[in-house]
């Protein structure tokens, strides 16, 4: 082998490595999860998925949303027990279905004695679909809609403008079906919220808006006396109802930048090693 060929080898290896890195940077996120971090996919479906046991749910992608104790002034606010909720969303031309599934081994359907509290779950939307209100029940200047299901079998559609301001709509337009199910190795709830996309009433979130829609979730474990501000809640997520964006997803760009940076470091290192070798030979 000639000296020239020997000198080129590290460069060749570095180039090959850099190429591989850039390729994997572009491909890995596509193979894995190309969704932006807070996006919950919404599947277009033909028929009703109001039944939590409907077969159609198996074709709907799920997002696992972590939950944490809501910051709140009520006693024992930090003592919550549900850690995550699995969210799936689907629409027909005129209806939104959101299925929540979470682990809760105790079934609490009653509030029929002084100490009895029921399991509950809620979905929160901004009233003004294009905004992101304060996460804790919105604020006076930026209201939220809350759909709240209670294990007693009741569902309320609520309006709130900050903690402690929750007010029920007299005629709720949200319907809910709930069933006990198995989550992992545990018992749990599977609950579907259903509402028409179009809202014709003031202070009711317009789901048919042509823009991404913020959404957040809350779960209460009745066995643990959770109610009001003692609840496990998510941050704001969003349903991608807005026009599809053609740009590369954020994650892909990050991977690409990282790949190029690593390739550059390897190339510079290889060149430095080669130069050092050449200097040693000529020295």
């Amino acid at each position: 082998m000639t000296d020239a060929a020997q000198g080129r080898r590290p460069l060749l290896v570095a180039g090959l490595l850099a190429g591989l890195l850039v390729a994997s940077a572009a491909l890995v996120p596509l193979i894995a999860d190309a969704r932006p971090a807070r996006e919950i996919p919404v599947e277009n479906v033909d028929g009703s998925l109001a039944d939590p046991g409907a077969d159609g749910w198996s074709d709907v992608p799920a997002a696992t949303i972590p939950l944490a104790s809501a910051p709140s002034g009520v006693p024992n606010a930090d003592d919550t027990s549900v850690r995550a909720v699995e969210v799936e969303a689907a629409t027909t031309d005129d209806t939104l279905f959101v299925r929540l599934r979470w682990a809760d081994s105790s079934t609490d359907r009653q509030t029929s004695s002084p100490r009895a509290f029921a399991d509950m779950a809620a979905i929160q939307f901004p009233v003004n679909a294009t905004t992101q209100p304060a996460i804790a029940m919105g604020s006076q200047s930026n209201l939220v809609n809350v759909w709240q299901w209670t294990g007693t079998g009741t569902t309320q559609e609520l309006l709130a403008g900050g903690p402690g301001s929750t007010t029920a709509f007299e005629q709720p337009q949200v319907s809910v079906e709930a069933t006990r199910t198995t989550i992992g190795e545990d018992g749990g709830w599977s609950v579907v919220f259903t509402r028409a996309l179009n809202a014709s009433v003031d202070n009711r979130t317009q789901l048919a808006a042509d823009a991404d829609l913020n959404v957040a979730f809350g779960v209460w474990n009745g066995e643990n006396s959770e109610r009001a501000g003692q609840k496990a809640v998510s941050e704001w997520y969003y349903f991608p109802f807005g026009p599809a964006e053609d740009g590369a997803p954020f994650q892909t760009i990050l991977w690409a930048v990282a790949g190029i940076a690593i390739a550059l470091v390897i190339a510079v290192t290889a060149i430095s090693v080669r130069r050092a070798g050449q200097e040693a030979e000529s020295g």
Partner: protein
Amino acid sequence: MAHDDVEIADGVDHQVAMVMDLNKCIGCQTCTVACETLWTEREGTEYMYWNNVETRPGSGYPRDWESKGGGWESAEHNERSVGEIPSQQDYGENWEFDHEGILKEGEDKALKPENGDPEWGPNWDEDQGAGEHPNNYYFYMPRICNHCTHPSCVEACPRKAIYKREEDGVVLVDQERCRGYRYCVEGCPYKKVYYNAVTKNSEKCVFCYPRIEGEGPDDEVHPPACADQCTTQLRLVGYLDDQDGPIYKLVEQYEVALPLHPEYQTTPNVYYIPPVAPPQHSEDGESVDVERIPRSYLEELFGEQVNDALDTIERERAKVERGGHSELMEILQDKNPAQQYRLEVFDDD
């Protein structure tokens, strides 16, 4: 006229108040039934007694309510003590009797609760008291909501569904705003807010506000039903800041009417004249110079102030026994019925 020295809650014009003379209570429960008939004959209220009469010493209603927490940590009223919600068993189940079958259809069975053998209920320990014969002792204590000056139930509600009325300081639950969280039930150290499992709301004594407002069919002002119906007329009702009225005199001037458990720091507006019992007896039935109800027990209920109160009552009694005149004894003996219920003194405000 109002008196500036009286502590009244911010934003309250005049504070309605009640004094109950425990020396007159015979435990007949007429007040309990009067309240029950007027306010709690609805679905979901069967187990509730907005007014109850309990034997002291005893567990009370709900059972052991004094150990369930609530109230404030200090007189600064900036930190609440979080209490607990009593269990249904602590209140007692709603017993159902087959009066119809036994009394009208001649069924041959005992008249006893149809839904199981109860193991506890209101007044389960009635007349037990404490101490050994011949020196056992007990007295009766009627209890309603204290309509406190610093109500911890109000502070406990994250929705402000429970509030203190501006005109007279009556504490009410707004049934439209309440969402049944029961923080008020936890927060009240006297356990005088109750959860209605049918309406899913909390409710409580309303100091018979329609009666004291004269909103009844006769348009006349009436005292609360528990006071009006009382067989021994042991209650005085009026305003704490009416310095010409008996309540002001008993609470502020003579200091013989005391709040129950002042250490809870809610500043109740229901006050008690502490009980005076006959002295203890020796084995052969002779009176001995020892108080039957231990001062230590009365201090547990009413604080150290009870000593001064009892001394004042004893002193004024002795004065009358010697043929003298005592305004305090006249008030306590209710020699002037027009003074007993003074609810219209501030009507022109």
